């Protein structure tokens, strides 16, 4: 037996003092109540008959004293909070429960996570006297679900709060969190409960030993001095998964799109599968797929046409080879993607007439072009168009929509004209900017060009030495300016010209660059949104509010499927997939070797140690007090 409350010495001292006081009170002669009786001799006769039992009478007094002493001893013991079992030094324990997607595998009933929680509850029930613990949920954003506690009910509540996610686990952050919590605590112990399907690269950076005395590298996960234990969960590696799913529209023909699907088997046996592709729930394509053990296969679906937006790829068991559940982890048997919306851009060309320009713009099938002469320009027109191209004309005030300027002049120029350069040669191009994708300006000839002076935030797309000839700006409206008249250059004769125009219009539309066909769970998502806050509704219908910063709603998605992001700018649907081969590899690790040491199973968790006796002792004391009260009032012990 061990004591979790007051120490044995203080208990013994307290008991001795109280017992001495109690005995003194018993020894002291109490002042008796005086009663006058008419005939004391009658009492004397009665008492004389009972003299024979005077020994018992004295004994009864002793029995009463003993009962009181036992009562006192029970209370003193209760104050010591005794626990059954062998006592030992108090430990500080971090119970790290893997709640990643692979823990949803159903090879354990009902699934691995529930099994892990059950194991965690057993550990909590076996905490020793003075042990303190906390529960860390290991998923994409590991978090401690409470403070260090010794109350098993509170710890059980923390364990119950561990919910499954569809995201990979961030083991490194989880281990660092455990290390931070345990640092400086007595007898630190970290217990990993999971399937062990964690990146080897992370495990290799864990440092458990401090033998060389040197500080570990910054990249190392410092768990020196921590007793790291591993409790494996899971029994099967039966899983096939869609590990890659991508979709995109053709740039030149946005009514068509292509899809890329990649599937992988993590089984030890061959798999015969059916790969279904659906568009808005309707089957578009079905393919038979045979995968050997560990084999990865890619399928490419070119030139698909359709008006739908939601794509879904799903692996199913081949009906010819038997039905039933495909594998232990259904989560990664399906992948979702969104097609970029099909939308024609309305473009206004303000030009006195430029065949090169009109011809290049008419090439873009995604743009509906209208032309007005500069004299007909009216800022009110802006509301009817998605973008405007000013050819050799500079409006007095910039329009409230994306605009492409060709050779702007005067003080109203979006970029300050700092002079002119004669026959410049392009020397620097911002190749990574979406505007310059597939655009080559090498050896471009022009007679002259304006030289722009840039403000902070402006981007120089093309420069001749230090002279900026093509510039772009993102806010308040996306603006691009070429410092020269294309008719005085050979640009219209180059492939780069229509490409540059298409890029500019796509950049203005904004979708292609920012739209992502599908996000990955567990990663930070940035979704275009308006206002300060957006509401995200996940596939299960649960909603959460997320902040919107710089026009992007930011969140970490945890569920696979289609999400809806609602903000002041309207609703937007996004798709999310697991898309992690590491997470789909659900083969449990029977043992883990970290820093050259095999992690042992947790030990020293004996359920008897947890059993709290103080309540029973107090109840026993109460029962004894009641008994004493009853016997006193019945004059049995006096």
């Amino acid at each position: 037996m061990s004591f979790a409350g007051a120490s044995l010495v203080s208990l013994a001292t307290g008991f001795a003092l109280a017992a001495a006081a109690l005995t003194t009170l018993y020894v002291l002669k109490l002042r008796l109540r005086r009663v006058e009786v008419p005939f004391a001799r009658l009492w004397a006769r009665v008492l004389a008959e009972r003299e024979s039992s005077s020994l018992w009478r004295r004994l009864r007094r002793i029995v009463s004293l003993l009962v009181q002493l036992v009562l006192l001893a029970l209370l003193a013991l209760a104050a010591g909070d005794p626990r059954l079992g062998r006592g030992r030094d108090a430990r500080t324990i971090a119970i790290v429960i893997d709640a990643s997607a692979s823990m949803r595998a159903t090879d354990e009933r009902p699934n691995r996570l529930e099994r892990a929680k059950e194991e965690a509850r057993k550990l909590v029930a076996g905490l020793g006297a003075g042990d303190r613990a906390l529960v860390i949920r290991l998923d994409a954003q590991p978090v401690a679900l409470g403070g260090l506690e010794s109350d098993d009910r509170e710890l059980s509540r923390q364990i119950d709060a561990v919910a499954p996610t569809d995201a990979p686990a961030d083991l490194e952050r989880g281990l660092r969190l455990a290390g931070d919590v345990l640092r400086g605590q007595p007898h630190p112990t970290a217990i990993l409960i999971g399937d062990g399907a964690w990146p080897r690269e992370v495990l290799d950076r864990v440092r458990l030993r401090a033998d060389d005395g040197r500080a570990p590298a910054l990249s190392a996960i410092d768990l020196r001095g921590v007793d790291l234990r591993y409790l494996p969960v899971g029994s099967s590696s039966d899983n096939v998964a869609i590990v890659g799913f991508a979709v995109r529209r053709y740039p030149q023909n946005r009514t068509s799109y292509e899809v890329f699907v990649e599937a992988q088997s993590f089984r030890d046996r061959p798999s015969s599968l059916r790969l279904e592709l659906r568009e808005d729930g309707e089957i578009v394509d079905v393919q038979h797929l045979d995968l050997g053990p560990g084999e990865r296969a890619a399928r490419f679906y070119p030139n698909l046409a359709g008006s739908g937006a939601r794509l879904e790829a799903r692996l199913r068991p081949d009906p010819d080879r038997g039905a039933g559940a495909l594998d232990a982890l259904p989560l990664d048997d399906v992948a979702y993607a969104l097609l970029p919306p099909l939308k024609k851009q309305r473009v206004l060309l303000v030009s006195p007439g430029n065949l090169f320009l009109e011809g290049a713009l008419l090439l873009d099938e995604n743009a509906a072009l209208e032309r007005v002469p500069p004299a007909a320009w009216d800022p009110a027109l802006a509301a009817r168009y998605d973008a405007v191209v000013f050819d050799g004309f500079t409006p007095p005030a910039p329009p409230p929509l994306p605009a492409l300027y060709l050779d702007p002049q005067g003080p109203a120029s979006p970029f300050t004209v700092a002079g002119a350069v004669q026959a410049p040669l392009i020397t620097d191009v911002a190749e990574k900017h979406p505007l310059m994708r597939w655009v080559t300006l090498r050896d471009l000839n022009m007679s002259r060009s304006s030289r722009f002076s840039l403000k902070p935030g402006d981007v120089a797309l093309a420069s001749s030495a230090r002279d900026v000839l093509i510039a772009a700006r993102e806010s308040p409206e996306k603006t691009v300016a070429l410092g020269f008249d294309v008719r005085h250059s050979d640009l219209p004769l180059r492939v780069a010209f229509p490409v540059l125009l298409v890029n500019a219009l796509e950049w203005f539309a904004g979708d292609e660059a920012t739209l992502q066909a599908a996000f990955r769970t567990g990663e930070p998502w940035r979704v275009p949104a308006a206002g300060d806050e957006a509401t995200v509704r996940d596939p299960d219908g649960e909603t959460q509010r997320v902040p919107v910063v710089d026009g992007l709603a930011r969140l970490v998605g945890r569920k696979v499927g289609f999400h809806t992001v609602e903000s002041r700018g309207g609703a937007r649907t996004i798709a999310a997939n697991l898309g992690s081969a590491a997470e789909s590899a659900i083969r449990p690790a029977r043992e883990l070797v970290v820093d050259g040491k095999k992690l042992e199973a947790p030990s020293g968790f004996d359920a008897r140690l947890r059993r709290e006796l103080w309540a029973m002792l107090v109840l026993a004391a109460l029962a004894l007090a009641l008994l004493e009260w009853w016997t006193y009032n019945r004059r049995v012990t006096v």
Partner: protein
Amino acid sequence: MPSAALFDEAFLKKLEYLYVVSKKVFSGRIRAERRSRKTGSGVEFADHRGYTTGDDLRYLDWGVYGRLGRLLIRLFEEEEDLHIYLLLDASASMRTGRPPKIDYARQVVAALAYVGLSNLDRISIVPLAVGRDGRRMPPTRGKGRIFKVFEFLRGLEPGGATDLSAGVGAFVHESKRRGVAVLVSDFYDPAGYEGALNLLRYHRFEPFVLQVVDPGEARPSLLGDLEIIDCETGEVREVTVSPRLLAAFAREHQALCEGLEAFCSARGIPCFRAETSTPFDELILRVFREGGFLR
């Protein structure tokens, strides 16, 4: 209860009622006032006896002489006052009880005295307690004397130890005229009551025993550690009172009462036990009903 309030108007009414009721009760048995066994100058013929010299010739039965030729003197029963002695235990133990036993005893004695006085008997009240020798109410008769009885009883303060034998011994030697001796006491006498009752019998008194018992004393409701003090002797004793002890005490008290009754029954002495919770008039009627007190 203050002694003045013992004998108020209501009490007097009750006494009158008792007297009327008692007359009805005993009307079949007693037609007139008491007669002595002496023969003398009464009007009721009793017997004949032979003439001797000196007898009053007025009582010579001439009719008998004419028929039988013998001189016989007619004897008449002589009417005589009955002496009723009310021996009241006035020891300190009578002071105890709720209400005090002495108050109850006073009322009973007053009632008996009233009935006696109304019957033209001679009533004498004798307090019994150590140190009370000589303080007694002399024999008196006549209904109008009841107030004197009240006054005497009011002035009676209980105190001193109980010694029935000594008190009765003094009484029998001082009282020349025999009569009914009603002993009203709690009979808490360390020396016992037997000697006192025997003394009355030996001296040809007709003893009546009336034991006054307080229910609270017979079955006390004490509990716990106590120091009990005898109100007469001052004897102190430490007692731890338990329900079992209380039961034993109640049995002992019952044995004391039953012992008294057995003693009296064996000797033909009427004995009544009166609990102070019983209204005194009910007791008086019971005493009359069971008979013996009035002839």
